[in-house]
């Protein structure tokens, strides 16, 4: 029997969770190996959070600090809700990737460095005066040097590939090493590599070979002193897949149309970081799924409104600049009282801002950003998988209340992924569309007495011919009128209708005790970071609870009561106190602000540090 040296030397260390950061040049395939790693970890039963972080430039100057692309994965047991704060392991493909990320690494953490790329040119590009591999500056870290270029070339020397082609596979060498480090099974990933490169079999073969060679290198050379066993999540039985927030939105829209037994119309203009919704849906274009790449953001919104007038479940995805452009159209949807879902994948602004980075700066704009009294429903998703549920909910509300609904996601949710349990379609409640009264009783602005919604009589339906548009409408008849009293009445109807959506909101869930010293309030994407901080604070004996708001307009009716049960309220958000201002206006509760406006997600350490400060007062 062949002896396995790893059984003797590397000690096996159990962990509740681990955080790995892959980093390299934007052309190094970092996002690719990050996604492969996350998919494999999820399949092995880990819960996880991911944070892809990449420059806006497609090919930033090679080796430069600005061109560094990163993909962070935090995986482990049920308590994993974020991509983690400080990585335990950094895989850096070049000096720039090391330099950009080192300040975030704890002393004693592991640095896996591609030593072949620490040449004088690359060091200079990264701004290093001496080589960190041998100048002692990394003495406090566990440095593992891997000559990944040389080793990859060695694996592929007989492949007939050119040197530059071979070097494109080196990311998979590093990935193989990490799989060994975390005792992960390589089979599913080899399958995924084959699927990814199914049209280029020679690349599939080369990448798989390099990946396995990386794994075997770690096993054979004993470059790591420990091998980790990361705990798994207690998953309910079912079918799972790893989904990003954008994919979850797309699949939910397909599901919603099916549940409503209507066509889906998705109209969108390419914009980072929302385009993946368009890319995902475009694959399924057909009789029941209409996908329209519009000439601009306004056209995307208006085409959706037209499609809605013709009876389709319609949705448009966008991000900040595009959301601004859609404002006028959204006002029209409010006036016409037609269902429409707008997914705003927020990114750091203002203006073009930081197009690939995340933020929560569009909250006020979503609620108030239209001329005139133009109320609509604003929802938020709290995690990548939650994007599925909240999109479904957005469609249900849009159709039931005949209103535009804005669903706020952001770059963090859109690109991040987590395991998603595929729902059983038969168990999901159908989306019921209230039938309009018979033609002789129908008028365009006759309202359902319970919801105050008008009825959806789609263009083409016999006997229901009517006109709609942006001018104020007469109550019931829908005729154009400038009557002051009628305008007041219609504004009130539209406002009351949106306020009435409060009845759809479930009782507020408080994480932790329902009363106490401190309540942390966040909304949408900060759910994981805040919950993790509350757990960490609890371990130190701080009595802290938290609430994640997913209904922003209207707000949950019980939320004032919930907040008043706590001595203090901390409002944590990725922006300058937009939520805090809103809560103050609605409930006269003056929260303590925690604002992060760095284009990076709020992390649990940010919140934890603030909790400690509050309790130290």
């Amino acid at each position, binding site marked *: 029997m062949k002896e396995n040296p790893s059984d003797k030397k590397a000690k096996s260390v159990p962990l509740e969770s681990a955080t790995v950061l892959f980093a390299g040049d934007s052309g190094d395939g970092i996002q690719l190996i990050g996604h492969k790693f996350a998919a494999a970890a999820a399949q092995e039963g880990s819960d996880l959070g991911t944070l892809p972080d990449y420059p806006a430039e497609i090919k930033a100057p090679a080796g430069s600090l600005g061109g560094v692309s990163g993909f962070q994965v935090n995986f482990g047991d049920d308590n994993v809700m974020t991509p983690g704060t400080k990585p335990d392991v950094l895989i850096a493909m070049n000096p720039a990737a090391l330099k950009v990320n080192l300040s975030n690494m704890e002393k004693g953490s592991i640095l896996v460095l591609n030593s072949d790329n620490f040449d004088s040119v690359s060091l200079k590009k990264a701004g290093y005066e001496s080589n960190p591999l041998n100048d002692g500056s990394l003495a406090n870290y566990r440095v593992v040097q891997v000559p990944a270029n040389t080793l990859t070339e060695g694996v592929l020397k007989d492949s007939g590939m050119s040197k530059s082609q071979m070097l494109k596979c080196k990311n998979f060498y590093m990935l193989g090493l990490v799989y060994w480090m975390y005792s992960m099974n390589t089979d599913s990933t080899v399958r995924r590599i084959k699927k990814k490169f199914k049209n280029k079999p020679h690349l599939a073969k080369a990448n798989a070979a390099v990946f396995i060679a990386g794994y075997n290198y770690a096993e054979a050379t004993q470059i790591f002193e420990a091998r980790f066993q990361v705990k798994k999540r207690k998953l309910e039985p079912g079918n*799972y897949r790893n989904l990003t927030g954008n994919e979850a939105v797309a699949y939910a829209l397909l599901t919603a149309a099916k549940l409503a037994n209507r066509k889906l119309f998705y*109209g969108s203009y390419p914009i980072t970081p929302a385009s993946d919704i368009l890319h995902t849906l475009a694959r*399924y274009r057909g009789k029941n799924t209409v996908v329209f790449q519009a*000439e*601009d953001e306004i*056209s995307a919104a*208006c085409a959706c409104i037209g499609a809605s007038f*013709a*009876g389709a479940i319609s949705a448009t995805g966008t991000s900040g600049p595009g959301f601004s452009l859609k404002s006028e159209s959204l006002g029209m949807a409010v006036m016409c009282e037609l269902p429409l879902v707008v997914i705003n994948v927020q990114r750091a602004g203002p203006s073009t801002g930081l197009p690939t980075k995340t933020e929560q700066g569009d909250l006020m704009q979503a609620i108030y950003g239209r001329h005139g009294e133009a109320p609509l429903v604003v929802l938020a998703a709290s995690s990548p998988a939650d994007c599925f549920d909240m999109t479904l909910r957005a469609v249900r509300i849009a159709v039931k209340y005949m209103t535009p609904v804005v669903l706020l996601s952001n770059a963090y949710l859109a690109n991040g992924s987590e395991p998603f349990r595929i729902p059983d379609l038969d168990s999901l409640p159908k989306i019921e569309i209230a039938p309009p009264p018979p033609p002789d009783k129908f008028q365009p602005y006759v309202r359902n007495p319970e919801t105050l919604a008008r009825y959806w009589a789609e263009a083409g339906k016999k006997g229901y011919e009517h*006109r709609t548009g942006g001018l104020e409408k007469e109550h019931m008849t829908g005729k154009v009128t400038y009557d002051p009293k009628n305008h007041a009445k219609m504004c009130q109807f539209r406002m009351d209708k949106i306020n009435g959506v409060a009845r759809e909101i479930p009782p507020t869930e408080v994480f932790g005790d329902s009363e106490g010293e401190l309540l942390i309030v966040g909304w949408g994407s900060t759910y994981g970071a805040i919950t993790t901080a509350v757990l960490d604070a609890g371990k130190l004996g701080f009595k802290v609870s938290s609430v994640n708001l997913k209904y922003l307009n209207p707000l949950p009716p019980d939320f004032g009561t919930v907040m008043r049960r706590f001595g203090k309220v901390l409002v944590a958000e990725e922006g300058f106190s937009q939520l805090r201002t809103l809560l103050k206006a609605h409930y006269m509760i003056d929260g303590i602000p925690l604002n992060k406006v760095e284009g990076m997600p709020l992390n649990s350490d940010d919140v934890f540090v603030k909790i400690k400060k509050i309790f130290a007062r």
Partner: protein
Amino acid sequence: MQSKKLTPRDFASPQSVKWCPGCGDFAVLAQIQKTFASLGLEHEKFVIVSGIGCSSRFPYYINTYGFHSIHGRAPAVATGIKMANPELSVWVMTGDGDALSIGGNHILHAIRRNMDLKIVLFNNRIYALTKGQASPTTRLGVVTKSSPLGTVDYPVNPVHMAAGLDCGFVARVLDTDARTLNAVFSKAATYRGTVFIEVLQKCLAFTESEFNDFKDKEKKEDISLYLEHGKPLVFGKNKNKGIILKDLRPEVIEFEPGKVPPEVVIYDETNPALAYAVSGLNLPSFPVPFGIIKNVPKPSLIEILQQEADERKEPELKEILGGDAWEKE
């Protein structure tokens, strides 16, 4: 199919029409109602979409589905309607400001996609609803409220633009010319693809005399070129002038009435290059062309999508959601 034969009156709307008395829009409305009644489709299969401006009030005055949308965006709204329900006959009523200024981008793309929309552009060469500012079709040097010293922007020639964008069906008509309106609308209604019709339409308030010469018995024949497919490009009160192409450059020649020289162009509305050249003819050197300028069939976006859908097996939602899923027992 219509359950009973419909008449233009069946398309009259209950809402009172609020255009200025005598406005050219009335004539177009009457012709559209006549055309719709003749198409054999029921009321509910028509959708009229408009933007903002005087002509954009059109949907309120016709008893079909209608959408009076926001400034410039009618083609986008109409695109959504048509793609969501291709059975509908979708008409866009727009003006020179609406279509060519604020909505210019949407016009370009509605034409590019061959969207199967009927675009009717009411060109009164002024912003009338906002009370008299220069529009993108206002002639150079004209005094308006926003150009008290005369306009300095060159005007757009709408049919030349549409032909240049490779629109398959392009026509121009005069609001008072009921016969041509009827002929053009009837052909446009059955054309499968984007239709672009420019209606020269006077504004009683601001451009009352703008098109008078085209209606003046003494003058009109010398400044109007009535296009007929297969017929020579002849005009003039005495039918003594014709258009020739010299090195692809149009020129006017005169001849003895009744003796049309062979070099006078025989009009072919299916010839895109000829249509482009003729669409650009304008005063003062040339007469203004009226009628169907271009009529070239090409598959519409709707036909392309329908063919794709017929040929392709759509995956079931279960398969889509299943993706690369794994099972946890």
